[in-house]
C-alpha cells in the first residue's frame, strides 16, 4: 500500500514538474532522466551532482533526477511510465531488478527514447548499453583483496550483501569467489542478506559474529550494509578483531575508519559515474556514437568507454579509502 502511494505520488510530481517546465524552454533541450534505485541514498545524490556537472558542460541538456522512494522494481516501472508520458529524450537507469524492468524499458525504446543502464544493469534486451562503474572482475577482486590485505595469516571472512536478488552484489560476489584461490588462507564462511535496511543489516551482522566466533573480516559490498556492520562491530566491542570492509561512501564511513572498525574500503566515484552516464546518453541521443559491440562512446573528461559483446562497458577502477585520505573525501560524497 505504502509503495503504491509513494510511487503514484512521485509519478504525479514528476509529471507536474514536466507540465510546468515544457512550455517555454525545455523543448529544445535534450532531456535526460537519471532514474535511481531509490531517492535519498547518498551514492545516487552524488551521481546526480555528476549528471548536473555534465549538463552544465554540454549546455543544452536538462537533467530529470528521479526514482522510487524505496528500492523496488514496481516503483521504478511507475517512474519509467511517467517518463515515457513526458517524452524525455533519454533514460539512464540503475535497476532494482535485472528482468522486471525490461517490458517498461522496451516500451520506452519503441517510443524512440534512448535507454541505457548504469551501476546496476538491465538485461540486454531492455537497454541499448550498460555502463559498469568498474569491471565486475576488478570489483570482485578488490573486495576480497581489501579483506586479505589486513589478514596476513588468513582467517574466516563473511559477506553481508544487500537483497538476495540484487544484480550487482551477486555478480561481484561471484567474481570474488572466482579469484578466491589467489588468496590462500582466506576462508569465506557465509553470505547473509541485510536488504539494504540498517536494522536488518545490523541484526545479520550480530548473527554472523555469533555463528562464527573466529570471524576476522566482514565484506559488505553495499553502502547501507557496510555502515550497519561497522556499527554492530563497534557495539560488540570487536574493533581490531573484526575488520569491516567492502564498498561504501567516505561521508558515511568516516566514523568507522576513524574508530578503526574499518581499516579500508573502496568505491568508484559516484560523481564520475553520473557524469559519464549523462555524457553517454547525450552522445547516443545526438547520434555521435552507436551502441554496438566494439563501439566506443565518449564520456567527456572520463575518456571513452568500449563496449563488449553484450554492449557493456566499464568506467574505471574502484578507488581505496583509508585513514590517510578519508578526511579529504568525507565532505565530498
Amino acid at each position, binding site marked *: *500500500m*505504502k509503495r503504491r*502511494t*509513494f510511487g503514484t*505520488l512521485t509519478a504525479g510530481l514528476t509529471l507536474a514538474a514536466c507540465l510546468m517546465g515544457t512550455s517555454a524552454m525545455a523543448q529544445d533541450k535534450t532531456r535526460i532522466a537519471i532514474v535511481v534505485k*531509490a*531517492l*535519498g*541514498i*547518498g551514492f545516487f*545524490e552524488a551521481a546526480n551532482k555528476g549528471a548536473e556537472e555534465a549538463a552544465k558542460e554540454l549546455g543544452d541538456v536538462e537533467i530529470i533526477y528521479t526514482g522510487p*522512494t*524505496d528500492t523496488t522494481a514496481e516503483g521504478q516501472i511507475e517512474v519509467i511510465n511517467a517518463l515515457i508520458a513526458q517524452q524525455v529524450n533519454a533514460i539512464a537507469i540503475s535497476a532494482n531488478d535485472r528482468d522486471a524492468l525490461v517490458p517498461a524499458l522496451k516500451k520506452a525504446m519503441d517510443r524512440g527514447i534512448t535507454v541505457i543502464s548504469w551501476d546496476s544493469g538491465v538485461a540486454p534486451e531492455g537497454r541499448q548499453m550498460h555502463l559498469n562503474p568498474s569491471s565486475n572482475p576488478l570489483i570482485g577482486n578488490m573486495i576480497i583483496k581489501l579483506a586479505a590485505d589486513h589478514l596476513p595469516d588468513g582467517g574466516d571472512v563473511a559477506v553481508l550483501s544487500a*537483497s*538476495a536478488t540484487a544484480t550487482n552484489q551477486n555478480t561481484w560476489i561471484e567474481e570474488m569467489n572466482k579469484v578466491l584461490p589467489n588468496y590462500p588462507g582466506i576462508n569465506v564462511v*557465509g553470505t*547473509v*542478506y541485510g*536488504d539494504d*535496511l*540498517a*536494522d536488518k543489516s*545490523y*541484526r*545479520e551482522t*550480530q*548473527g*554472523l559474529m*555469533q*555463528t562464527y566466533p573466529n570471524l576476522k573480516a566482514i565484506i559488505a559490498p553495499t553502502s547501507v550494509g557496510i*555502515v*550497519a556492520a561497522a*556499527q554492530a562491530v563497534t*557495539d560488540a566491542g570487536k574493533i581490531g578483531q573484526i575488520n569491516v570492509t567492502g564498498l561504501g561512501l567516505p*561521508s*558515511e564511513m*568516516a*566514523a*568507522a575508519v*576513524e574508530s578503526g572498525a574499518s581499516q579500508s574500503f573502496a568505491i568508484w566515484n559516484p560523481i564520475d559515474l553520473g557524469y559519464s552516464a549523462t555524457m553517454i546518453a547525450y552522445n547516443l541521443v545526438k547520434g555521435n556514437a552507436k551502441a554496438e559491440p566494439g563501439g566506443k562512446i565518449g564520456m567527456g573528461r572520463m575518456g571513452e568507454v568500449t563496449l563488449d559483446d553484450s554492449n557493456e562497458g566499464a568506467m574505471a577502477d574502484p578507488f581505496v579509502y583509508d585513514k590517510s585520505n578519508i578526511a579529504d573525501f*568525507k565532505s565530498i560524497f
Partner: protein
Amino acid sequence: MTEALKSREAILTGAILVLIALISTRYPGFAAPGNLANVFNDTAPLILLALGQMIVILTKCIDLSVAANLALTGMVVAMLNTVAPGVPVIVILLIALALGALMGAINGILVWKLSIPPIVVTLGTMTIFRGIIFLISDGAWVNAHEMSAPFKDFPRHVILGLPTLSWIAIAAVLAFYVLTTRTALGRAFFAVGGNPHASVYTGINVGRTQFWAYVISGTLAGLTGYLWVARYAVAYVDIAGGFELDVVAACVIGGVSIAGGSGSVIGALLGAIFLGVVKNALPVVNISPFWQLAISGTAIIVAIAFNARASRVPGRVILKRAEHAA
C-alpha cells in the same frame, strides 16, 4: 474473561519458550542469558511502539504513521545534533517526545474533530511525514561522524547489566500496565473500543479518548525515533520502512483485538518479544533469505490462529433437547 486472557498469554509465553528451545537445538548459544538480553534490547523499539499501538487499537483505531513519525523525529533530532552538538541529551529526549506527541495529536485531531476513518488519516500522515523528512534533509543522510558522542551513547549506556534502551522499554511496560489497569483514562480506552455507544452514556467522550490514544502512541514513536537513530548511528529517509506493519503484527499476535476493546500490556509485550525472537533467530540458524520472509509470515498467521481459537467463547447450547428432537 480474565481466565481466557491469562491462558492466551500463557500459550504465547509457551510458544516463545518452545521457539527458543527449537533455535537452541540448531544454535546452542541462542538461549544464553547474555544473548537473550541482546535480543530483548534489539526488540525494545518494537515493544515501545507496540505499547502505543495497543492503546490506539483498543479504541477501535489504528496508527499506521508510527514508523514515519519515528523516522521524522529521528531525522529532526539528528539534524539538530549536527548543528548544535552541545545540546544535552535530556533536551533532545524532551524534543523527541514533544515532536512525537505533536504528530500523534495531528492524527488524533483529524480522527476526533473531522471524523475521518483512522486508517485513512494515518495512511495520509504516514506519507506526509516521510515526505517532510525528504524535504528537511534534501535526501541526505546524517552519518555517525556528524553525531556527537553523548547523542550516540545514551541508548547504549549500561546500567545494572542492561543498556538504557532496554530499561526504557521495561519502564514503559510498567507505566502502561498501571495506566491501563489503574487509571480512569486507561479504562476509558477499553470502554470506548468495547462499546462506543455505551461509553457515551457513561459520560466518556469517545473522540477525546481516541485523541489521547494517538498522542500517547505518537509520543512513544517520537521517543523511539531518537533511540533508533542513536542506536544505528545513521538517519535517512527510509529508516524503519515498513516497521508499522511489524508493530501492528506484534499487537495482533499479542491478542489485542483489531476490533477494539480487548487486549493487555503483557500481551503486546509478548507479541513484540515473539517477533523479536524470530527476527534475531533467523540470521543465526542459517536459513536462506528467501525462506526467511515466508517463515516470519507463517509464524504470524499461526500465532493469530492460535489466539483466535483460544479467545473463542464457546457458545452455550440452551436448547439441547429440542436440537436432538429436530
